[in-house]
């Protein structure tokens, strides 16, 4: 396996006339956690949504440039979005479990891909990997919406793991969670990077510093600086990065 799981080349994105991403070029390493930081509206969420083509769902979006996943451009016309999203999973800002039972939430993805046998094992394994199994094993048939916010978010992680992705995108996964739930999710991300390539968008710079190996700083649709998390936080090269990290704006 090559070192880079994802290679982004000259990516531009427009919402109507609004140039939201400008010439983004970046490599995402395999089995590492890459954090994307930056002030609100800087394009980090838009960027992460280009990696599994979630922006396809929005009208009037225009994209140029290339995103290679294991060397294959995911914007090539012959790429099947469904199997792309199976390989590149996503966890959203607000926990969004389906209004179904806990079991059905986790089994949803595998079922959508036609898996009928061994669902029980998949559900159990996924919930265990998401560190939720012990809390829900006796009530798998209960509505997922009865869980607490933190549990719901871990359920959404379990749901994503159940389709066996290679990359997991986290879009500010802790912004709606309390500090204890946040700590649990961060611990989980640390655990998950052994088996998955992880990209996480976060508002929280401490979080980026805690969980990530690499960090990218976005500002006004541009990737201002990218490098090892340690370097970004201790020796930022760009003035804007330093200003943001030290809290001078943002």
């Amino acid at each position: 396996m090559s070192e880079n799981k994802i290679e982004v080349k000259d990516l531009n994105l427009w919402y109507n006339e609004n140039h939201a991403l400008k010439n983004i070029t970046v490599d995402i390493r395999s089995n590492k956690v890459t954090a994307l930081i930056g002030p609100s509206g800087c394009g980090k969420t838009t960027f992460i949504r280009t990696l599994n083509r979630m922006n396809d769902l929005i009208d009037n979006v225009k994209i140029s440039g290339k995103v290679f996943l294991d060397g294959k451009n995911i914007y090539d016309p012959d790429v099947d979005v469904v199997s792309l999203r199976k390989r590149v999973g996503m966890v959203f800002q607000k926990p969004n479990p389906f209004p179904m039972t806990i079991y059905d939430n986790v089994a949803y993805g595998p079922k959508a891909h036609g898996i009928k046998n061994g669902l029980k094992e998949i559900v159990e394994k996924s919930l265990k990997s998401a560190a939720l199994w012990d809390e829900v094993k006796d009530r798998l048939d209960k509505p997922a919406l009865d869980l607490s916010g933190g549990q719901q978010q871990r359920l959404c992680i379990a749901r994503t793991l159940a389709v066996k992705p290679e990359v997991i995108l986290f879009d500010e996964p802790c912004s709606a969670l309390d500090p204890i739930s946040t700590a649990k999710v961060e611990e989980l991300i640390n655990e998950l990077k052994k088996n998955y390539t992880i990209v996480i968008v976060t508002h929280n710079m401490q979080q980026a510093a805690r969980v990530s190996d690499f960090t990218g700083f976005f500002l006004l649709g541009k990737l201002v600086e990218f490098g090892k998390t340690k370097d970004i936080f201790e020796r930022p090269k760009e003035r804007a990065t330093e200003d943001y990290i030290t809290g001078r704006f943002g």
Partner: protein
Amino acid sequence: MISAYVKDKIAKAIFWISGMTIILTLFAILGYVAVKGIGAMSLEFLLEIPRAAGREGGIFPAILGTLYLTAIALLFAAPIGVGAAIYLTEFTKEGRITNIIRLWVDTLNAVPSIVFGLFGFALFVFYLRDYTGGVSILSGGLTLGFMILPTVIRTSEVAIKTVPKSDKEGSYALGATKLYTVRKVILPSALPGIVTGLILGLGRAAGETAPIIFTAAVLNPILPTSIFDPTMALTTHLYTLTSEGISERNAFGTALVLIIMILILNYTARFLDNYLSRNLKR
């Protein structure tokens, strides 16, 4: 100068009068029909066929006919209406075509019911008579189906639009196809609203006279044996009883039965809405 307090009081009184007017109107109509019609009510009235042109006997064939007609209307309008709503909301981008479809749906909704009757007469009774049996339950039911189609499409569309975007994105992010997302996430969440819309459409269909006068209804008291037979219906029976001055008592009796049927439909809608949304609370 009137103080804010008094202004609020006056406003409250005006809105109270508006609210009370609705309740009073409903009670006046229901009460009047009930009082005038209750005399006709009996088991015989509900379960027997009319005799002497409706002066005596019951209205059983008309009750049955109305049920058959609305059932056909439902079987026709539900799949097409919900399908169109899914297409408009999920399978196409907002633009010229969706706007044109919506404009036409709204225009269809504004077409008077007698025009639907004429259309049904021309299409089903005349042109397609080899398939519909001419004047028949099928012809009348399909005509009613066309009439309630706009209601079904619009209410279903509203119901589908209330499904949270985050639920849909969650499904797509797991690599689910559009069809799978519609079946497993969108329709279950939208179902309470869709069912309510369908039943309210049914209530409208059950209460219409004009669309079935030329297409399905007959006056002779026969029990239909298939959907290719003509039938009596409550509204047309009521119309004949009144316009020919046959029996005021039985006319009000028929009206009472019709109103009760529609009330039952409306309450069923409400019950189903609550029942189907019990798992959707968040």
